[in-house]
Every structure is written in structure tokens, then in C-alpha cells.
């Protein structure tokens, strides 16, 4: 009856010099909430699939992480989101790429796995599937936070490219 859950919120040049004490406290609190969401499922005999979806949804909603609300912005200033989920027993899998209006992209990936014959849906088609499936929608500006606008502006000002910035802003 052993269960186990591990989560991540991204990697990069995350050091005490680049992360404030307040930012660190916020991140730790969000990671704790995500653990609680997954543990509540696993500790009561629930599935690993439901647990990973629940944990990732918490992190998608937290603006500190580069997913869902608080995502890194493309050169055009918009958030286009990617997600995937996979079950180890059946190797069923669902994924979405370049979606713009689903509040929880990981749940859209789950729906692709559960309700479509496909594995990966992308772009406007994936957005349409989300509407068709009745998933919670969000306006594109829901995903955009000032810190990311600033980071994009800094990148443009320094005429860096995505690769450089990726490691700075994760």
C-alpha cells in the first residue's frame, strides 16, 4: 500500500542571489499546497493519475511558476501553454501544445487522453476541443503577470534570444 509523490516547479539559475526570501517563502508554500493536493488523493487509495493532475493544477494557478498563470511570455507578449499526462499501467497519454484559453492545461491534456482517440492536440484545434469538452476557460490576460511582461521587455532591450533568457528566467 506504499504510495509516493514528487513534484517540481522548474529548474534554472535559481540561487539565493536570484530568489528573494519572500519569493522563496511563496514558492515553498505553493509546493506544500501542491503536495497536499496530491497526497489527499494517494493517501486515500486514489489513483496516481488523479494525484499528478491535482498537484500540477495547484502549480498552474500559482503565478510564481512558469505554467498556467505566470507563464513565460512569447515574443508577441502572449502566453501559449503546453502540458502532458501519462498513465503507467496502460501507457495512455494526452498532451496539448500552444493552447491559450484553458485555465488548467494539464486537465485539457487529461481530457485528450480520456475523451479523444489522439495523444497530442495543438493550437486552435486544442482550444476548440477544450470548449467542446466544457473545460474552464480563462481570458488570455489571466495568464499574464507584470513580472513576465518585465522579463520580456528586458530580453527585448538586451536583444537576447529565448535560449539566453530561458536560463535566466526559467
Amino acid at each position, binding site marked *: 500500500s506504499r504510495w509516493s509523490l514528487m513534484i517540481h516547479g522548474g529548474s534554472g539559475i535559481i540561487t539565493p542571489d536570484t530568489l528573494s526570501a519572500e519569493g522563496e517563502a511563496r514558492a515553498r508554500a505553493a509546493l506544500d499546497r501542491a503536495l497536499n493536493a496530491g497526497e489527499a488523493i494517494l493517501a486515500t487509495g486514489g489513483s496516481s493519475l488523479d494525484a499528478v493532475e491535482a498537484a500540477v493544477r495547484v502549480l498552474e494557478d500559482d503565478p510564481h511558476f512558469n505554467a498556467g498563470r505566470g507563464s513565460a511570455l512569447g515574443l508577441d507578449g502572449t502566453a501559449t501553454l*503546453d502540458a502532458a499526462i501519462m498513465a503507467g499501467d496502460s501507457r495512455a497519454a494526452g498532451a496539448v501544445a500552444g493552447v491559450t484559453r484553458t485555465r488548467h492545461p494539464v486537465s485539457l491534456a487529461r481530457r485528450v487522453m480520456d475523451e479523444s482517440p489522439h495523444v497530442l492536440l495543438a493550437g486552435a484545434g486544442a482550444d476548440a476541443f477544450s470548449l467542446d469538452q466544457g473545460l474552464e476557460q480563462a481570458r488570455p490576460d489571466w495568464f499574464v503577470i507584470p513580472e513576465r511582461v518585465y522579463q520580456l521587455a528586458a530580453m527585448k532591450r538586451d536583444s537576447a534570444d529565448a535560449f539566453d533568457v530561458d536560463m535566466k528566467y526559467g
Partner: protein
Amino acid sequence: TVGAVARDMAGHLAAATSTGGVTGKRWGRIGDSPIIGAGTWADDRACAVSATGSGESFLRVGVGHEIAARIRLSGESIDTATTAVLAEVQGLGGTGGVIVVGAGGHAAWHFTTPGMYRARTDSMNRREVAIF
């Protein structure tokens, strides 16, 4: 990028990953997160993996599937397989991290960057949150 891997009481594994990609991306660039076998993979015969880092390198190595294949086909431990595959990513000039849970419930994280937001909990009452 955020992700989770889990093993439930029935012994089944699962993985999930979600991301906004990279700042300043254009031309419809997609990284490894939504690509099954690269940033996200789960197979009860081996392990579940969620990755974060330089998406292009993780794609070219096929990180999730590669870690699982090393465990399944050569009997490597999670730690050995994960370390070796992240070294391949570094060989391509990429850096990042992975979280991995195995069929027996053993979980591990590895990363080649200065930090990774990460946390774990399990039925043995081990609970940890770490960043640096």
C-alpha cells in the same frame, strides 16, 4: 515548467508536466514538456518521469523514455539511469532537471542547474521541500 510523478497504492505510476515555455519564444516553438517520451513519460514496468530544462536537448535525447528504457532493459537503478541521461543532455549543451518515481515507489530528483523547485511526500512519512 511544473510537473509531478506518483505511484499509487495499487502500484500504478503516472506523470504530468505543464509549462509556459521560454520567454521570447516565437515561430510556434514547442519544447519537451508536451512531448510524450521526452518531458513526460510513465510506464509501470520502469518509472514515471517529468522534466524541466533546455527543451530542445531534452527532446533530442528523449529523456523520459531513455531513463525508463535503461531501467527496464538494463536493470539500472533510477539514480544511475537518470544521472547518465542528464549527462547526455549536458553533452548536447543542455541543462535542467528531472523527477522520477520507480515501480517500487522509490523516487529521486536530479538536476544540473543551480537550483530546482522540488518537493516530495510518501506513505513512509517522508516530506521535503527544497529549492537550491
